[in-house]
């Protein structure tokens, strides 16, 4: 298995920030990396496992994550513009104060993830659940949450976490 993403990291100079775009990563495993403040644009990750990766303060633009697993990943203070997360599992990961603009979580599951004080705008949640996750102080603007055939639209909320929690429990 080729780990193309890790090769990009290995080729960085000591203090160089990872700036990467227009790439597809397929079936890779990314372990134990610290790539804070990276700028990542137009990337597709398909069946990629992220484990113990620290992306703190990174910016992701037009990135797609499909069938990916995030375990013990730090996405704290990250900025996501037009992201798509599809069939992803996000476990024991830190998304505190992350900002998500214009994107989708579809068929995703959060397990023991910390989303405290994160922010979502122009975002859609489709069949996405949150189990044992910390959802305090989540801000939301122009959100659609789909569950089965029902769509709930939220114009603005400063405690969106309560709503997500209820949506996850209502089965």
């Amino acid at each position, binding site marked *: 298995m080729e780990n193309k993403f890790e090769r990009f990291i290995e080729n960085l100079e000591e203090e160089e920030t990872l700036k990467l775009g227009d790439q597809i990563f397929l079936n890779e495993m990314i372990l134990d990396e610290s790539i804070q403040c990276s700028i990542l644009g*137009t990337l597709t990750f398909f069946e990629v496992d992220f484990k113990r990766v620290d992306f703190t303060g990174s910016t992701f633009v*037009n990135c797609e994550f499909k069938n990916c697993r995030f375990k013990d990943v730090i996405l704290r203070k990250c900025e996501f513009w037009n992201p798509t997360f599809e069939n992803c599992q996000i476990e024991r990961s830190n998304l505190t104060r992350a900002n998500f603009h214009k994107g989708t979580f579809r068929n995703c599951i959060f397990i023991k993830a910390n989303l405290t004080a994160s922010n979502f705008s122009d975002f859609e949640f489709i069949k996405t659940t949150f189990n044992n996750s910390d959802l305090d102080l989540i801000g939301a603007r122009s959100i659609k949450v789909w569950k089965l055939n029902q769509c709930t639209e939220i114009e603005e909320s*400063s405690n969106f976490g309560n709503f997500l929690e209820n949506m996850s429990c209502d089965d």
Partner: protein
Amino acid sequence: MVGQQALVIVVVQGGPGDDSNPNSNTPCFNIKSLDQFQNSNYFNQAQKNKKKKKKNSRQVSQKRVIKAYQDFLLKMNKKGYEVNIFEDIFLELSTNSQTGKFDEKSIFEAEGGLELEAKGIVNNLRRPDNPKVDLDFVAKRADFEETIFIDHKRMIDFRSLSDKGIDISGFPSHESVAFNMGKDSVDQKGKFIGTNQSPASMAEVVHLYNFKNIRNRTEIPVLMQAVLNGAEQAAYMNGIIFLNYE
């Protein structure tokens, strides 16, 4: 609008949440094939990669932080500020309070916060005592000795990607990024009020917008205005400081 919530419920049949496709019923997770796990080369390769990574570890060392400190002093000197900031303070502020380790993001935050101190705007900069108050710093306002909380925002320059031949035509404009930052920061000012050792009001939270990374300096006035417009749209324009806009 802070603290307010408006819900509108609309029921739609057959949309993105439609369950008619049996394949879309359950989340499908990345399960490697059995062959892949049984293949010893798979693990050997992973081990090799892991070994390689240790050699190239990107964890921030104390040496790196000290170099950042020295660069910071030089920069402040160049700007004509009299700096009385010791190395141990810089090291402390460059430590991620959640992990107890140095990291790039914390160094960046420390540089911005300490530049405010060098400029004589604040004193006694430190990380908040209560980790639940998730703002970058707490400090005393130099003029009135009031406690303020500071959050440092970095403006991003997407042109650093186009330098590498990456197509950024579908990216948001810097202006819209700045506008959203200004708008979102208003909500953030109100987030931690009421927590122990937290800001008592939104007036105690200052957002610091740093334009250090914006290479086209003629763009900066437009971005500053965009931040203000965003804050105005969210109905709160106080507590905004710009850095590296000259």
